């Protein structure tokens, strides 16, 4: 779970508002043919969002983790080898960097930067339970909310079980480290119990769910309140319309 529990205006927004915002920034970055200049404005807006939302330091760490390898990979590849390369910018001991490739790399990275920072603004400030509640409400079906939330929660219990299974098999003499071949052959005894255990767990859990009235007909209530407002609803409509219309305008121009 990536959610960070602290007060902030982004935290108070309805999950859907943040989702639509994410959608809009992705549409703007990818589908409206923005120049590098406009992209940097968009990126600055995202940065502002993250800073004002109080999640700058965690987001920065995450962005560096994702972008450093990408930069190291894309800049030389495109700067040197992009097929559109014609204009030489500088050369270094016979290695030549070209303007077109570097611009392409920069633009791709900026587009990605917009989407990733908007995504981080969503995941860091949205409690999964709020998202599940909102989805269940909107869809009128708790099954859909369940499909969404269950993997999140399951992952945690799976991680613990992986360690237990590893221990159990090592205690029976299974070597799990060593050369690649050995690691590969040790995978079966680790994965098989995990898989079977999950299947058995699901059967039991579905019984447990049924007896909690999972399929009872009639209106359902929710303990968790996910506040929404007219302003947010309207701005979601507006953002959605923009996310559809702006790319279309660009496309038909």
């Amino acid at each position, binding site marked *: 779970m990536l959610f960070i529990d602290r007060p902030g205006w982004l935290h108070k927004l309805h999950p859907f508002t943040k989702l639509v915002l994410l959608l809009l920034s992705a549409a703007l970055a990818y589908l409206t043919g923005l120049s590098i200049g406009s992209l940097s404005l968009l990126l600055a807006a995202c940065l502002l969002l993250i800073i004002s939302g109080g999640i700058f330091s965690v987001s920065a760490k995450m962005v560096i983790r994702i972008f450093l390898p990408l930069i190291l990979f894309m800049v030389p590849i495109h700067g040197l080898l992009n097929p559109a390369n014609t204009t030489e910018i500088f050369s270094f001991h016979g290695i030549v960097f070209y303007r077109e490739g570097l611009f392409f790399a920069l633009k791709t990275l900026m587009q990605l930067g917009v989407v990733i920072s908007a995504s981080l603004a969503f995941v860091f400030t949205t409690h999964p339970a709020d998202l599940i509640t909102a989805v269940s409400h909107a869809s009128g079906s708790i099954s859909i909310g369940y499909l969404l939330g269950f993997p999140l929660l399951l992952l945690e219990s799976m991680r613990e079980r992986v360690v*237990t299974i590893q221990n159990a098999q090592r205690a029976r003499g*299974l070597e799990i480290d060593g050369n690649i071949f050995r690691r590969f052959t040790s995978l079966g005894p680790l994965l098989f119990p995990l898989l079977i255990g999950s299947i058995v767990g699901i059967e039991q859990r579905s019984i447990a769910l049924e007896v909690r009235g999972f399929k009872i007909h009639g209106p359902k209530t929710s303990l968790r309140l996910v506040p929404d407002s007219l302003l947010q609803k309207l701005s979601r409509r507006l953002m959605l319309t923009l996310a559809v219309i702006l790319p279309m305008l660009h496309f038909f121009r």
Partner: protein
Amino acid sequence: MTIRIKNISFSYPDGSRALHNLSLTIETGECVAITGHNGSGKTTLVKHLNGLLKPDNGDVLVNDSNTKACKTGQLARQVALLFQNPDDQICKQTVRDEIAFGPKNLGFEKDKINLLVEVSLALFDLVQYKNHNPHDLGYSERKRTAMASIVAMDSPVLIFDEPTAGLDHLEIELLLKVFEKLQRENKTIIVISHDVDFIAENMDRTITLANGEKIFDGPVRNLFQDDSLLARCGLLAPQMVQLSKSCKLPSAALSPQEFISLVQD
């Protein structure tokens, strides 16, 4: 096969302290119970005996060799450990193959593996199921398969985590017969258990942990007679001890036979 633990301490990566300055020695052929609250460090302790965990401080010596210098694979030849849930380990398509898994990993000869597997199948009354898929069988058959797979490793030390949990009376009787056989072969048996009646009747010595420290190490009777100690480790007195106390016997009986001989004089 002596196990010597010298002043070990261990904390998990998240910083929680699991064991603190703990020392003990277990000699060949002993029958030892490890008791204590959930989270008192019992499982962490036994994971040190076969090298699954290495102490932060102090040493664990299995047959005079330090676990820090050994791989778990090597140590499994000396110390076999059975975890509580059979479904955390069953990975083969037949009961027979599942039981052969450990001996194969230890690199035994084919004939020896076959012999060990046959003996274990018989010991745990699984011969009729040997070609069944363990996952088609009930919990108790799977639990017995898991136990058989540990016994088949022929290690001089065997550790069982909650072996009686989920077993019925007949299965516990079966387990006791296996324990008797292992004792005759001079194997060391270490049992983590909450089952006080089982411990009272079948174990010689008990080691009791609380918050990662050893708070008792001695004859089973001494633990069960000490109410404050029992309360500290979340145990209730065994039935026979409760009866002995209610009848105001000078010392607690551990079995019905003993009780009768105590009151008979």
